[in-house]
Structure formats: structure tokens, C-alpha cells
């Protein structure tokens, strides 16, 4: 058992305790948490900084505002309802279209307006929020993801998670929804995570709950080797999120829209650790390297160059 721990340590694998004690607790000031925990505030922060986000149609802050929903949704065939302070991708309802007076979810279910309202009430009641506090429901633009991902995606929207340490992207993965995950892009719900070569933006092997995989479990298509378009832009957005929040250790969730390009979905002050399995690499070696060169990594281009030079896959 101790040998196992020692070998993992040699690989630089970060455990939950170390992430909490030495990264999130030590580097992320508590007062900055609301900036990332509340998606509404993240949006308000990103827009003036010129970081594109999905368009906000409306915010339901209390029960009586639910009657505004039809007005806001009048011009939109599809949309997403998500809790402002949700965690782990829970409580996100994706409406892909309409069937007469009803709504059709991304999963193909039909929802009556009452059922939709009930979902919003649940969100407001704090069912999905951290610690169960009352919450607000965001109604926003539904991302139409870039067609490059079509063959390795089952329902839902694939997103890109980038871990940013002191403003330097240190590790990234592409999260692909599966049937098991119910169209959600969270690994613990059954999505597939594929590591990304930070230098080129090409995908590596994937990891699912079953272990390491090379094909998407639903579509059967090969995952490694896909080059993500606009990689430079995605990395830049991730790196800039550091200045936006001041969080030293940050998970940035981005999505690639077919019309709008890269969009910032949300930020995470306690990003998960499965990304290490997806990349078959530990975070600790990379964070140590960044720590050593921190003085020379002030500007965003410097940080990107550093990341691409050191954290690419060695040929």
C-alpha cells in the first residue's frame, strides 16, 4: 500500500487532501469564492473583461418572477436553465426545442410548462446549490457545439476543462457526455474525459468510470488525435480567468460554439482530480515547475508560451 502511494507520488499525482490543504485552501481566498460559485457573478465579471459567455436571457430570483419566463423565452426556440450556484453540473435543464405548448429536453423528454416551473422552483429552493441555500435560476443561450465533436459526443455539450495555476494553464481535458451521464459533461456522472496535449490541443486517451478508453462508449468513434480548433483562444481565455478572479488554483470550463467560438461556461475553485487520469499525468510536477518560474510569468502570452513549451506531450 505504501509502495503504491510512493509510486503515485513519483508520478506527481495530487490527492484530494493535498489539493484542499495546499492549493484551494492556501491559494484561493475565501472571499473570492462567490465570484466563481455564483455563475451570475462570473458572467458579470467576464463580460466587461471582454471574455465571451453564453447570452443571458433572464434571471429568476424569486418564485413570483417565474411568470416572466414565457416573456423571456418567447423569442427562443431552445435555452438552458441552470442554478446560479449549482455544483457538479447538477440542476441544469437543457431545452432543445418545443412541441406545441410543451418543451423538449436535450434528452428527448417532453416537459409541460408546469414541470418546467417546478424545476425552476427546485432551483430557487436551493435543491442543487452548495449547502442548500436559496438560489437563483439563470435562463441562457443554449450552446450549439462545434461540429468537430459530433462523432464523439452523445447528446449534451462537450466542454473543455482547463486547470489554471497562477494564471498558467497546467492541464486540460475534453469532457464528452455519454448516454450514461445523461448528456452531462461531468465525469462522476459517467461522462468520458479525454486528456489534451496543451501544446497542440490534440486529444489523448479518455477515461470513464470503467477505466481508460480509446473509443467513445456510445458512438464507438476514436477519441485520441482530435485537434481542438481555436486552441490558442481557449488557452488565452483560461489564463485570463486568473486575473478575473485572483484565484491561484482554478478550474475553467469552456465550450466551443459553432457560431460564437469559445465561450466561458463557469469557473471552479475546487476542480476535480480525475483530469490527472485522463492525461495519465500528475499535476504536482507541473505546479512545482510553475511555482519555480512564477516570477517570469507575468503576462498572458508568457504564461501561454510556458504552458505550451513545458506541458505538451513529449514526442
Amino acid at each position, binding site marked *: *500500500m505504501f509502495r*503504491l*502511494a510512493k*509510486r*503515485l*507520488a513519483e*508520478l506527481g*499525482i495530487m*490527492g*484530494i*487532501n*493535498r489539493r*484542499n*490543504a*495546499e492549493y484551494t485552501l*492556501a491559494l484561493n481566498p475565501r472571499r473570492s469564492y462567490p465570484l466563481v460559485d455564483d455563475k451570475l457573478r462570473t458572467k458579470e465579471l467576464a463580460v466587461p473583461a471582454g471574455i465571451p459567455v453564453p447570452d443571458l436571457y433572464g434571471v429568476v430570483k424569486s418564485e413570483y418572477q417565474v411568470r416572466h419566463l414565457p416573456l423571456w423565452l418567447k423569442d427562443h426556440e431552445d435555452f438552458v436553465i441552470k442554478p446560479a450556484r449549482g455544483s*457538479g453540473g*447538477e440542476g441544469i435543464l437543457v431545452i432543445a426545442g418545443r412541441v406545441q405548448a410543451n418543451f423538449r429536453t436535450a434528452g428527448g423528454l417532453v416537459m409541460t410548462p*408546469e*414541470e418546467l416551473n*417546478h424545476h425552476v*422552483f*427546485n432551483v430557487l*429552493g*436551493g*435543491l442543487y446549490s452548495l449547502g442548500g441555500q436559496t438560489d437563483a435560476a439563470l435562463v441562457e443561450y443554449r450552446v450549439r457545439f462545434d461540429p468537430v465533436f459530433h462523432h464523439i459526443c452523445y447528446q449534451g455539450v462537450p466542454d473543455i476543462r482547463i486547470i489554471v495555476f497562477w494564471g498558467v494553464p497546467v492541464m486540460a481535458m475534453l469532457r464528452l457526455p455519454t448516454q450514461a451521464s445523461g448528456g452531462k459533461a461531468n465525469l*462522476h*456522472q*459517467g461522462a468520458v474525459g479525454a486528456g489534451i496535449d496543451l501544446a497542440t490541443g490534440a486529444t489523448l486517451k479518455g*477515461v470513464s468510470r470503467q*477505466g*481508460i478508453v480509446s473509443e467513445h462508449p456510445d458512438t464507438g468513434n476514436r477519441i485520441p488525435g482530435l485537434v481542438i480548433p481555436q486552441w490558442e483562444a481557449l488557452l488565452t481565455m483560461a489564463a485570463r480567468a486568473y486575473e478575473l478572479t485572483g484565484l491561484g488554483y482554478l478550474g475553467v470550463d469552456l465550450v466551443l460554439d459553432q457560431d460564437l467560438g469559445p465561450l466561458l461556461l463557469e469557473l471552479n475553485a475546487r476542480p476535480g482530480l480525475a483530469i*490527472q*487520469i485522463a492525461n*495519465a499525468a*500528475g499535476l504536482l510536477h507541473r505546479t512545482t515547475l510553475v511555482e519555480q518560474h512564477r516570477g517570469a510569468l507575468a503576462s498572458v502570452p508568457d504564461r501561454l508560451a510556458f504552458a505550451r513549451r513545458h506541458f505538451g506531450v513529449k514526442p
Partner: protein
Amino acid sequence: MNKTHLYVLALILAVAGLGLFLYKVLALNFPLAPGVESYTWNVEAKITFTANDEPAKVSLFIPRTSRRYAITNEAFVSRGYGLLTASEDDNRQATWSIRRAQGPQTLYYRAEVVRVSGREPVSPIPPPRPEEPGFEGAELAAAQELVTQIQRRSADNETMAAELLKRLNQPHPADNVALLLGRQNSEAAKLSLAVRVLALAGAPARVVHGIVLKEQKEKLPLVHWLEVYTQKYWQPVDPVTGGPNLPGNYLAWWRGPLSMARVTGGADLRVSMSSSRELEAAISTAVVRGQIKKPLLLRFSLLSLPIHSQQVYRILLMVPLGGFLLVILRNIIGISTFGTFMPVLMALAFRETQLLWGIVFFSSLVVLGLVIRFYLDRLKLLLVPRLAAVLIVVVILMALMSMVTNHLGLERGLSVALFPMVILTMTIERMSIVWEERGPYEAIKQGLGSLLAAALAYLVMHQRTVQHLFFVFPELLLVLLAATLLLGRYSGYRLLELLRFKVLLKEEP
């Protein structure tokens, strides 16, 4: 941030806790394990007399805490009597009085005494004045002759007393002794004569009356003893042998020439003594010892609380231990549970149901609750009303379960009422959400994790030795706090994490 700071703090806490712990174990002999028994004696003096239908007053000498015995508890049973206790010189006296009494009367004095080790040095007491001997005429001459004889053959008060007792106890006493004793030949008479003769010789002495503690229901005989003032304190002298040792279980009751009890307004006064041995946990004995030696240290002990509060603290002090166990289970091993401390509360509830039944009741309540929660989900209720509804259902289920098990003759079922229902409700709610969001696998995994943690916490928290240790040595909580603080900075892998990341090693060539 600063690890040194943390280490120093933890060290201070641990040293303080362990130091106090060791002091109590080694110096005050607090028992490490429960159930080490020591002897406590219950002594009783029963007074009977016949009242004359007029104001009655009864005085009784009662024992006081000495270097040999501590009185831990006393009670006066006397219906309708006013009671006054007073200390004078070396005696304590209780006086019962009543305006009017008639017929046979019974009064009781009861005390609980514990043997204490009198090893600590005795502070010197000032020499008392010898009593007036009160000899006259021929008696005086005989006494003076006796004094001359014993003074010649002794070095100090103690040996003089021994010499005197030897003469008094001879089967055929010398003429002067026979004259002084007259026809009285009882031990009490001899001792009071000894005190008078010693007074004439200028040596303060007194008679001590007491009992030898043993299992005896009634009519425990009084044993008289002589005490002579030597140099700095009162030295006991065996009235028969003249030796300096008291019997092991001798409890001194009163001193001086007066009789044990006196009555006015009544007749036929009788006093009957009895004593019985009580097996009591050594712990309270140790406390009494400590009170006599170091009153300050134990004044704030949990053992000085009323019994009922003690019981509460016995349990409450286990909660930190449960919390510590959860730190290990969650941060070192990596088990996930519903709610951080829910398993500790469940473990407390298991106290009443016992482990097996606790698990059965808990599981069935959660399963039934989940079924109903899933049904409630279809009604599309708002969050708080839904939680309240689940809470109501949980309480109904608990009541039903008690009724059904009671009907089946299972007494354990009644204790289900002590389950923390709000915690149960939240567990059901969270479990149903995890079930929907992450699937049944994750929900059942966390549910079983919670149950396992609760069972482990129960097993640890209900060890009798562990309970005893934390109750008697609450300073161990400081050690626990130190350990928790140190674990708070543990940044190594969790045990289950090793399994999670194991796949990475297989990739290695």
C-alpha cells in the same frame, strides 16, 4: 499556513493533556480501567428512646473526617425533629430536638466512609492542657505513687502510657491500682482512670471511642482506645498491649469522657451501631482521596457533578471521539457519508437500540422514506414543504415501527423513537437527490458508507473502557484535539484514492 505554529500548538495541547492524565494516574491513583473496586463502608447509628410527652432533646457524637477515614456522605433520618450539628474541640455532635414527643422514638445517623491513605505529613498541633485529674485523699496518694513508678520506668509520654496500661491490665493489680479502680473493672473505666493518672503526671491524654468496621448488621461493639499527646500530635496507644498501632479498620467516632448519646425528656436511650461494606468503583474513592490531598484540582472535576449530569457527560464526551473517527474515515480512508457528522448522531442513537437493531431500523426507515420521497417527487412540491412532508412521514414511520415491533413483542422497537428524525429526513432527501443526479450506485455507496461509519463510531464510542477514560480523564480531549489539528494538515493520499489512481500505474511501461 505556518506548519511550525500548528506543530507547536499541537505539542502544547498534547503535553498538557497527557501530563494531567499521567499525574492523575500515577499520583492520584485514578484507575485506568473501569470497575476496579475499592471499599466504602456504610455505618449507621440507630438511636431509640422512649419519649416522656414533653420537649425532647437527643445529642449524639458523630464521626468527622480524619486522616484515616473520609466521610463522603451522611444522612440524618429523623422525622419531625429539628437538627443541629456542631463541632467542638475534636468532636462533632448532632442534636435532635422536638417540642413534644411520646412513645418509642427512633433516630438514625448514617454515613458513608472511605479509607484514605494518611501518608501526608501532619501539621503539628499545639499541646493541649491536661485535664484536671480530680483525685482526693487516699486516691491522690495512690495515684501519685503510681505516677512515680511509671515515670521512673519510661522515657516519654508514650512509653509512660504503655507502662501505666500494663499495670492497669494485670490480672492481680497492685494495691494502689486496685484502690483506684475500685470495683469497676471495665475497659472504659480503666481508660478513663489512665487519662486521669496521666494528667496527674502532666501528660495530656484522652480516650477515643470508635468501631472496628466489619460486616455486622447490629450491635457493633464500641472499641475504646487511648491517645497520648507526644511531641507534636496525638499518638494512639493500644489499651491492652500498650502498643502504638490501631486496628486496620478502626473508625474513631468521638473522644473524651462523655457517653456517646444523651437524652433529655426521654428515657431508655439505646444506641446500636452497624456497618456494611459497599463495593464501589475505585473512582469515587480516588476522588475523595484527591479532595483530601489536593482540593483544588478536583473541585472542577466532572466527578463532582450530580450523577444525572455525569451520565450525560459520559455520552457527550464520546461525541468528539466520533468526530475524530470521521476525520480518519473521510480524510485518511476516503469513505463518503451523507452529512459530515450524521454517522456520529446515528451512533448515539444506536446506543439505545444496540448495533444490529439500529442498523435494521435505520435501513428500513431510510428505504421506506426513500420510497415515499420518490412518490412525493411526482407531486412537484416546493423544497421546504417537501422536506417537512418527509419529516412528517419519517415520524409516522417511526411511530408505526414502534407499534409493530411492540406488538411482536420486540422491546427494542420502542427505542427507535430516539432516532434523530431531522437527520434522517435530511439523509433521505440527500440520498434521493444523489440517486437522481448520480444514479443508484453512488447513492447506495454513500448510504452504505454512512452506515459503516455509524457502526464503527458506535463500536468505538461504546467501549466501556473508552467511555471511562474520557470521562475520568477529560484532559484526553486536548490530546484528541492535537491529533485532529495535525490530521487537519494531512495532505497525503486517501486510502481509496490509491485505488482510484491505480489505473495510472498500469499505463507505465
